[in-house]
């Protein structure tokens, strides 16, 4: 596997604002990489730096082995799908698709044929003569994608391409983009703030915050072994429960501080007695049992049922959220036992948030 995109020690400053801090990232040819993080984390800046729309302040940026630091966008041979699609409103769909070819001096007949071919695969054949304003949101999205595909670029860059679609279409397009990637075997970099998109679409997920890469790896590795509290809280939905706890005198038990409730859990390894720790438990890893049957009992505050799953919120501080599959028999005001398996606990340092 050759490396298609490589960043070494990349920094970006806007005046006094440090948008990207020492970014190191290697993307193998043909992989689908998702950059994910809250707004302002630098993921879009990173993508735009790859496209050449932003100039990086320091560091090295290589695409297909070539140094790209000062190279203008037009010489990078990458294609980008914008959040707003950025379809040229004064051009028909066909003209939008062939724009990049025409700039490169491709013969008209050849460009037209290329447009027809791409349109056939993306289902736009009957729309080639229309203007962008005459298309639906989903169709515009397809045109934006086709405009990228037609070029056979070294890399596809996606900047939150699904955020303007409604929920149903978004789920559909998610699969379509992934299928497209599998067919073209192109290198893709996909920016999103939606961790579900990142988890479901990408081969490799990069979680960013405040201009730093917090963690990168395979989607399920991030889910199973988050390196810190931020990644743990960001990946997974509903979000992980975080509970302050103290290690017991024997070093093998944890006392959870849930306000009025104190719960004790056994851990599978030995910790320094008396140490303060933040315990992370995913809502889907907590089981509900009859009162007294679980690890400890909590009072139930709210039960929200979607039919298939039920979200149970316990009246504790901090709130403990539990996801139960199927119809729940639990009612607000009940005392229920919670069952927690020691090997599904995530332990983080109380101060630094780093995984223990």
């Amino acid at each position: 596997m050759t490396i298609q995109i490589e960043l070494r020690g990349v920094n970006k400053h806007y005046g006094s604002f440090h948008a990207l801090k020492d970014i190191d990232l290697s993307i193998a040819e043909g992989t689908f990489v998702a950059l994910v993080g809250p707004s302002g984390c630098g993921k879009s800046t990173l993508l735009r730096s790859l496209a050449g729309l932003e100039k990086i302040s320091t560091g090295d940026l290589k695409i297909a082995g070539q140094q790209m630091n000062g190279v203008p966008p037009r010489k990078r041979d990458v294609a980008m799908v914008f959040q707003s699609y950025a379809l040229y409103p004064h051009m028909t769909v066909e003209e939008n698709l062939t724009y990049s070819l025409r700039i490169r001096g491709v013969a008209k007949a050849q460009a037209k044929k290329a447009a027809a071919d791409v349109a056939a695969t993306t289902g736009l054949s009957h729309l080639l003569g229309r203007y962008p304003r005459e298309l639906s949101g989903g169709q515009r999205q397809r045109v934006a994608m086709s405009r990228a595909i037609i070029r056979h670029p070294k890399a596809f860059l996606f900047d939150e391409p699904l955020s303007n679609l409604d929920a149903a279409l978004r789920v559909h397009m998610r699969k379509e983009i992934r299928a497209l990637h599998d067919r073209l075997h192109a290198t893709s970099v996909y920016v999103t703030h939606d961790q579900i998109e990142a988890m479901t679409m990408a081969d490799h997920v990069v979680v960013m915050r405040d201009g730093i890469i917090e963690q990168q790896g395979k989607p399920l590795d991030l889910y199973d072994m988050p390196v810190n509290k931020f990644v743990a809280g960001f990946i997974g939905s509903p979000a992980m429960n975080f509970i302050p706890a103290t290690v017991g005198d024997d070093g093998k038990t944890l006392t959870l501080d849930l306000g009025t409730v104190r719960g004790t859990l056994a851990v599978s390894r030995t910790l320094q007695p008396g140490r303060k720790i933040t315990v992370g438990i995913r809502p889907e890893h907590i089981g509900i049992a009859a009162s007294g049957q679980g690890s400890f009992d909590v009072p139930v505050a709210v039960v929200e049922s979607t039919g298939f799953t039920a979200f149970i919120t316990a009246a504790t501080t901090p709130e403990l959220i539990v996801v139960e599959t199927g119809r729940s028999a639990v009612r607000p005001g009940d005392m229920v036992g919670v069952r927690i398996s020691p090997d599904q606990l995530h332990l983080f340092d109380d101060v630094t948030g780093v995984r223990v």
Partner: protein
Amino acid sequence: MNGTTTRDRLMLAVAVVMAAIYLFPLYWMYITALKSGSEVFATPPSFWPAAPQWSTYAFVWESRNMGRYLWNSLVIAVGSVALISVLGVGCAYVLARYRNAWVDVGLFLILMLQVLPASLMITPIFVGFSQLGVLEYPRLAVVIAIAAKSMPFFVVLVRATFMSVPQELEEAALVDGNSRIGAFFSIVLPLARNGILVSALLIFMQAFGEFVYSKSIIQAAELQPASVGLNSFMGPNTNEWNNIMAYATMYVTPILAIFVLLQRRIVSGLTSGALK
């Protein structure tokens, strides 16, 4: 349902009456131009000419040499629009694309220079131009003065137009393989075309009716524009009001026709810039 249509009709009627009152001076210009020399001074004044004197137009056109005056106005207006467009479009584009302290300073400067009254600025401009010898080319001198005066207005309007073209379109063109200049000409300019044309048209109308600079700078009658010609036609104790109004009619009717035809675009272009 019926209630709203009645109300609509009533409102429309009132609006038409108000417009008629407001536009009465224009009506009076057109009517006076068609009156005979004696009918102009009739008491009570007639609100409809007894016998329209269409020949007044030909007479005034010939005797006042209007062709020459209008030609000079046209030369000055076209020259001003050309100079302002060449200098102003690029400037407006850049000021629309960046948001930083430098742009704010540039905009502030431009707005400040826009407000200087021409009748106050003509003194230093005239003295400076006479020292530099620019007054040898009086129409060019007027074009430069008008450009300096009107360009800020143009830049503010065109900047608003450029701001309505999403930056992402331009970025898409860059990623698609175009250079900045190429993207500007193939994407940004076509999309901003209407706004630029309307702004240029407003500048044209302003320059076509410009008076202070022309009056002060152009001494030779054969180079003066129609506004100066009208001014010298009026004199202090004139009684040729039908002829003067015929002159005024021939001068403004083309402008008014353009305005009424393109009214919607002009008004929206004007309002987009003036308050932003």
